[in-house]
């Protein structure tokens, strides 16, 4: 009975060790498994007698086969056969059978387990590959949808960078974009970045993101929040404007070879751009990726893993390239759209905004003024005797005068004021948050500045100088709507003209009766 109890205790010890081994790392786990097997086998041999060591040896063989595969099993089979022979427990015939059994059992168990292990490893590799590809496809799909939903450059860049940095996307910790300057193809300027400035900041952001359970599309919609979060990062990024040539071998390589690079360790001192970036953003390892579209590079993207310090692999670059190309195409489209939009709302001659812009902008200006209980004052300007100037000097000089006049207006008003060319020699200026009196003052300053400006050909004008008549009206004081505002300022100009030109006239209901 005691023996049975001891056998049960021996088994329980084995079971306990078989469970407790999972508390440890893989290699210790295996060592404990072997120790448990040895203790169990030796214990049973001692309890059951040495004559039972023959079949109990199979248990030990199984343990070694499980840990070391068929090599381990074969070695242990040889050792055990040797021990049986050494202690001379069995007759030669029995020993031969036992030794043969050990070798057969060891090799077959080890072989089967080896096959399963290999099969499992292969399966795991395939699985990982499949999951990665599936995720990349998912990201591409989501980002394509998002990129197609906007033509605004800043939003396109935000979507693209979000796809690169969000865990739902490619999961890099930080990314920023440098775009080629239109005026100088060798010049690259920092435009936008997403990511933390330090590891600690990264942990805080990351926890918030997970806490709020944000998805890729949530991130895409949170552009404004991202701008606020990454204000400091973007301030630094936007301060970058570099000429890239042969003197910066790494960046130049990316641009000329059109292939991404991974920069590890020290950056070549000559590549001042990357060296400076590495120091500014505390980057240990980073990748420089060309933004390619239609066979040319329109910008560069820099990525790094500042928070988790995950090394960037070449495989990652292969995954990022299709997305980078798609992003680059969207960026180029947005840039072209922005350019054509600007062309549509700009006056080709003076560079001022045109009537189309005015029609689009005026409702917003009025809405804002009404919401904040502010004034919106309009100045309508008409160059005096301009037709006669054109007849005398020709349209070429006339155009030159318009350009100079436009420049003068822009310099005379504040940054928030909007100057538009209304058509011909007529201009309009909107002064948000300025009262009628302030508007009148500004108009007077402009009038004086114009009459003293040394325009070419001014001597042939009736007053021997180029002058302007200005009409002033204000919302809500004098006008009720946008069209009413323009119309009243226009009527005031008409009055200024009637009164002898080179004057500022504020709209008034009484005088309107007299002049119209």
């Amino acid at each position, binding site marked *: 009975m005691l*023996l*049975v109890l001891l*056998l*049960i205790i*021996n*088994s329980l010890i*084995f*079971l306990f060790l*078989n*469970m*407790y081994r*999972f*508390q*440890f*790392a893989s290699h210790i*786990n*295996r060592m404990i*498994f072997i120790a448990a097997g040895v203790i*169990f086998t030796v214990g*049973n041999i001692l*309890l*059951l007698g040495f004559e*039972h060591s023959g*079949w*109990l040896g199979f*248990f030990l063989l*199984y*343990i070694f086969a*499980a840990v070391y595969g068929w090599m381990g099993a074969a070695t242990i089979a040889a050792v055990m056969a040797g021990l049986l022979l050494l202690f001379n427990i069995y007759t030669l015939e029995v020993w031969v059978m036992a030794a043969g059994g050990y070798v057969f059992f060891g090799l077959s168990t080890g072989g089967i*387990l080896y096959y*399963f*292990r290999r099969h*499992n490893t292969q399966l*795991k590799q395939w699985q*990982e590959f499949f*999951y990665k590809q*599936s*995720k990349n496809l998912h990201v591409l799909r989501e980002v394509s*949808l*998002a990129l197609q*939903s*906007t*033509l605004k450059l800043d*939003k396109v860049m935000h*979507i693209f960078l979000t796809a690169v940095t*969000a*865990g*739902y996307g490619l*999961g890099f910790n930080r990314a920023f974009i440098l775009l080629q300057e239109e005026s100088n193809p060798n010049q690259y300027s920092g435009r936008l970045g997403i990511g933390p400035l330090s590891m600690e900041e990264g*942990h805080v952001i*990351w*926890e918030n*993101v*997970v*806490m709020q*359970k944000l*998805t890729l599309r949530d991130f*895409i*919609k949170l552009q404004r929040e991202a701008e606020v979060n990454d204000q400091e990062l973007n301030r630094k990024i936007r301060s970058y404007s570099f000429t890239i040539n042969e003197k910066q071998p790494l960046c130049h390589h990316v641009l000329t070879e059109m292939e991404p690079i991974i920069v590890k360790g020290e950056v070549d001192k000559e590549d001042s751009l990357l060296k400076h970036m590495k120091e500014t953003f505390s980057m240990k390892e980073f990748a420089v990726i060309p933004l390619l579209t239609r066979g040319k590079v329109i910008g560069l993207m820099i990525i790094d893993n500042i928070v*988790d310090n995950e090394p960037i692999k070449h495989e990652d670059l292969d995954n990022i390239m299709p997305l980078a190309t798609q992003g680059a195409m969207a960026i180029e489209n947005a840039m072209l759209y922005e350019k054509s939009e600007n062309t549509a709302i700009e006056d080709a001659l003076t560079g001022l905004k045109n009537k189309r812009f005015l029609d689009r902008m005026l409702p917003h200006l009025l809405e804002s003024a009404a919401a904040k209980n502010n004034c919106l004052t309009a100045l309508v300007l008409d160059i005096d005797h301009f037709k006669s100037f054109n007849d005398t000097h020709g349209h070429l000089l006339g155009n030159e005068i318009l350009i100079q006049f436009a420049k003068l207006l822009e310099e005379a008003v504040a940054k928030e004021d909007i100057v538009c060319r209304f058509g011909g020699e007529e201009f309009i200026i909107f002064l948000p948050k300025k009262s009628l009196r302030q508007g009148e003052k500004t108009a007077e300053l402009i009038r004086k500045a114009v009459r003293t400006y040394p325009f070419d050909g001014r001597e042939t004008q009736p007053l021997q100088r180029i002058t302007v008549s200005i009409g002033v009206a204000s919302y809500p004081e004098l006008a009720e709507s946008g069209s009413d505002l323009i119309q009243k300022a226009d009527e005031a100009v008409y009055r200024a003209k009637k009164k002898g030109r080179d004057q500022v006239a504020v709209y008034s209901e009484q005088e309107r009766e007299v002049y119209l």
Partner: protein
Amino acid sequence: MIQLTGAFLTMFCLLSTILLSRPFLTFLIKWSSKKKLVKLNKQVKDIYYSYEELTYFVSLPNRNPDIFQAPLSRFKADPVFRSFIFPEIEGLRIYLKTAEGETHIAYMSSDKLRVPALDRLKHENLINEKEYHNMKLYILIHPVTKKAFIDEVYRQIRRDDRILIIDEPV
């Protein structure tokens, strides 16, 4: 008699290495992680994790009536193990139970599960690598997490892609 008992117990122990290792592993992960969480004064419900790395086996959103119209109660989540003698929890499989069998819907790999709170604890040296690994697995197989993953998968299947309009209407 004694020999028979010895043989029976040896056979039982041998089989236990194959059949009981997975339950043993699960038990130990739960036991050690619970203990550690108590020590750190934290609860599973307070630890946030990310759904980001969920891999879907179906397209999203999915309008296949078999999947789209299936009630939430038919979505199940089970841990996926690898190997018997030295088992590992590889991930969480989310599937749809149907009359014909099971349809794989999504998979969350244990390696890819992101738990920032654990990253921080590890970064601050409050837990070691093994504890970090065990706690991550504990969170993955916890019933609360399973339910949360099922809810997320269900939500993604039924999401409306038409709402993805970035530009404000002109």
